[in-house]
């Protein structure tokens, strides 16, 4: 991919992810997160992972993040008040995070090679090649994820459903109301 593209997307991604962490209002954080996801998706596209890139945007941005949005609305989350206490933990956490960043950078700086268009087969990242892997080598995993999703849906409903006693629920359908 062109260096310019990488730099642009990378900067956007980092800034917006910082926004996720640093902003007060949950909805701003959410938008920042969406921004990050979109830029990462764009990076996927630039990495010839076309299908996954679009899926990233469709699934993450188009579905999961909307779920977050709904929850923000449902709970009517406002901006956090000024953080109180726990500064010691924050301090050490910052140090730990810095250390982790250092480690990871050293670690990944050992990754060699640069992107040439040459080293991928034609049709790499296209939906058929993905499908070949998904429905070939990873079929079992694919099917089991469907079960996972089903379970997740049921679990989510079971957890989040508010159980209302009959009297509060009022007259149910079919019962005469007067």
């Amino acid at each position: 991919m062109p260096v310019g593209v990488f730099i642009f997307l990378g900067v956007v991604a980092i800034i917006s992810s910082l926004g996720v962490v640093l902003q007060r209002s949950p909805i701003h954080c959410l938008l920042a997160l969406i921004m990050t996801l979109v830029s990462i998706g764009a990076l996927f596209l630039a990495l010839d992972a076309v299908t996954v890139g679009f899926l990233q945007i469709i699934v993450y941005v188009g579905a999961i993040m909307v779920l977050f949005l709904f929850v923000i609305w449902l709970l009517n989350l406002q901006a956090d008040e000024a953080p109180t206490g726990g500064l010691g933990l924050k301090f050490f956490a910052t140090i730990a995070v810095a250390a982790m960043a250092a480690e990871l950078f050293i670690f990944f700086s050992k990754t060699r090679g640069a992107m040439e268009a040459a080293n991928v087969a034609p049709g790499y990242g296209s939906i058929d090649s993905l499908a070949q892997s998904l429905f070939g080598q990873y079929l079992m995993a694919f099917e089991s994820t469907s079960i996972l999703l089903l379970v997740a849906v049921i679990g989510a409903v079971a957890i989040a459903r508010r159980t209302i006693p009959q009297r509060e629920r009022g007259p149910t359908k079919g019962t005469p109301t007067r």
Partner: protein
Amino acid sequence: MMTVSYSWLMALSAAIFTIGVAGVLIRRNIFVMFMSIELMLNAVNLAFVTMARRMGSMDGQVIVFFVMTVAAAEAAVGLAIIISIFRNRETVNADELKLMRW
């Protein structure tokens, strides 16, 4: 024409990942912590795609696909939990959710 080297992309994913970790460790709002976790997931996805690209294999992308699926499930359940917590405790502040303690 100069091209991007993989180490840059990995560094980017590392940066996003650590930012996510910081969010989990520092933010008090469990909701934002949750979002930070998504951030970390995506950083990992980026690393996967990068390496897949480098090795010219689809496996990394397949894993990303699965990560998305699991993330969807995780989001559903996690948000449901957050909702029920909020119903019972009227807060999303992690500091006030300390029931599981001595």
